């Protein structure tokens, strides 16, 4: 499959073509899993991407998660204190983080930190004809470039989401202890009591799906880059915006699927 292609004329057709390319890219990259086991170079790139995604996002994820937990703890504490129900902060934080906020925040962080970098790198490679060179050498750009990135993102997103939740709980517990007079261990105990296994696995699954969406969108947008440096900038911006939209819309439907039906 050739991903460096000519622009589609019109307004609706390019949108549909882009959606089709992104879906095809995601499908091909997911189906490329055996290459991670069969090919040493693909596996090495996968491990490199795990490092880039995981370690590269860790500092941001730590600060965002900790302070989100603290902010939520503070706001919820103020509200629940009126009804002398301060312990409800732990319950609410547990629900919010595991079900929605953990995967959502992780998705946003990954889209901003990693998805943008993927789009920029692949975009630069496309305008520099490096992707065309791979195709001319008979090397599949999807297997060579997308499979390691997509699978690394899919593996790392749930781990980061779990980490984000834990940090947010710690942030909430810190505020609970210092502002609401809730003992630290009691707060954590309440969080664990409120946590259900389903919340945990749906949250992790949601994060994994976000990982697929972000990497597929970022790589597809990168491959569609034209017009030099300005095009790379536009692609980076487009990848982040589309990833945010995909996270929001996808998140709604996943929640609906698991909690309504």
């Amino acid at each position, binding site marked *: 499959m050739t991903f460096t292609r000519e622009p589609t004329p019109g307004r609706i057709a390019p949108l549909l073509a882009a959606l089709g390319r992104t879906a095809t890219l995601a499908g091909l990259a997911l189906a490329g899993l055996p290459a991670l086991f069969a090919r040493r170079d693909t596996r090495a790139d996968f491990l490199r991407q795990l490092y880039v995604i995981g370690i590269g996002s860790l500092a941001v994820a730590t600060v965002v998660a900790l302070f989100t937990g603290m902010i939520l703890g503070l706001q919820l504490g103020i509200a629940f204190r009126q009804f002398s129900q301060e312990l409800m902060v732990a319950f609410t934080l547990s629900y919010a983080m595991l079900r929605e906020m953990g995967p959502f925040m992780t998705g946003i962080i990954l889209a901003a930190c990693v998805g943008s970098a993927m789009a920029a790198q692949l975009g630069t490679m496309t305008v*520099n004809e490096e992707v065309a060179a791979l*195709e001319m050498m*008979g090397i599949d750009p999807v297997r060579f470039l997308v499979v390691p990135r997509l699978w690394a993102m899919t593996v790392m997103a749930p781990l980061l989401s779990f980490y984000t939740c834990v940090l947010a709980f710690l942030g909430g517990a810190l505020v609970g202890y210092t502002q609401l007079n809730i003992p630290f261990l009691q707060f954590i105990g309440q969080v664990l009591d409120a946590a259900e296994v389903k919340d945990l696995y749906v949250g992790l699954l949601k994060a994994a799906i976000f990982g697929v969406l972000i990497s597929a969108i970022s790589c597809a947008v990168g491959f569609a880059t034209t017009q030099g440096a300005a095009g790379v900038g536009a692609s980076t911006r487009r990848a982040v915006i589309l990833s945010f939209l995909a996270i929001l819309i996808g998140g709604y439907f996943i929640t609906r699927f698991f909690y309504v039906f």
Partner: protein
Amino acid sequence: MSSDPALLFRAVTKAFGTRRVIDGLDLAAEPGEILVIIGPSGTGKSVTLKLASTQLAPTSGTIRVLGRDLAALPPRDLPALRRRLGYLFQSGALLGWKTLAENVALPLAERDRLPPAQIEGRVRDALAEVGLADSGDLYPAEVSGGMLKRAAFARAIIENPELLFFDEPTSGLDPVMSRTIDRLIQQIARARRATCLVVTHDLAGALRYADRIAFLKGGRFLQVATPAELLRRPHPEVQAFLKAQAVEDTP
């Protein structure tokens, strides 16, 4: 010369939207021939190269590459055909995170999956052929434009392609390095009997090594001739181009 051309264009057109870039192009390149395409900027030279190298599909007309009709070629057969082609991109298109040697090794390691010892030997030979025997461990960002082009050249020829495409192979290079690249093109065509299709603005170089020169303007060939014929009886448009180049090259 063989009766079966390595590359054949019949009434080929290429349009992007309503803009027709290539307008009824006919072309035949014989095995081992060096065919150089020259012409003003924006006249469709690079598009011609991309059409011939299977990177673009024509709007109409027939393109046969190494005997295969591209319109009838199933997508699954495209990688096999591309194995027989080599392409030197204008920028070199080397991967920035790999060394020159790793870049040259790419087709062998990624596509053919040869054993490392075999790859090492072939990469060493290819780098030596382009005068980069001691530079394999350097990264593209650490080398000059000429070295980068030569490394890309080594990558393009490492699989002994039957048909080679060169997109502005000497652009941005000094005259000495340009001569080196010209010599390499000549050497590869003569020694390996590879057909070379070269797009260039370097008319002086083209006159030295080309078997035939095709002058492209407005998506059509105005003249296809040997260098001697081109100088002896140039088409009026070609003559104007030659004069402009001569003025440009005069210090």
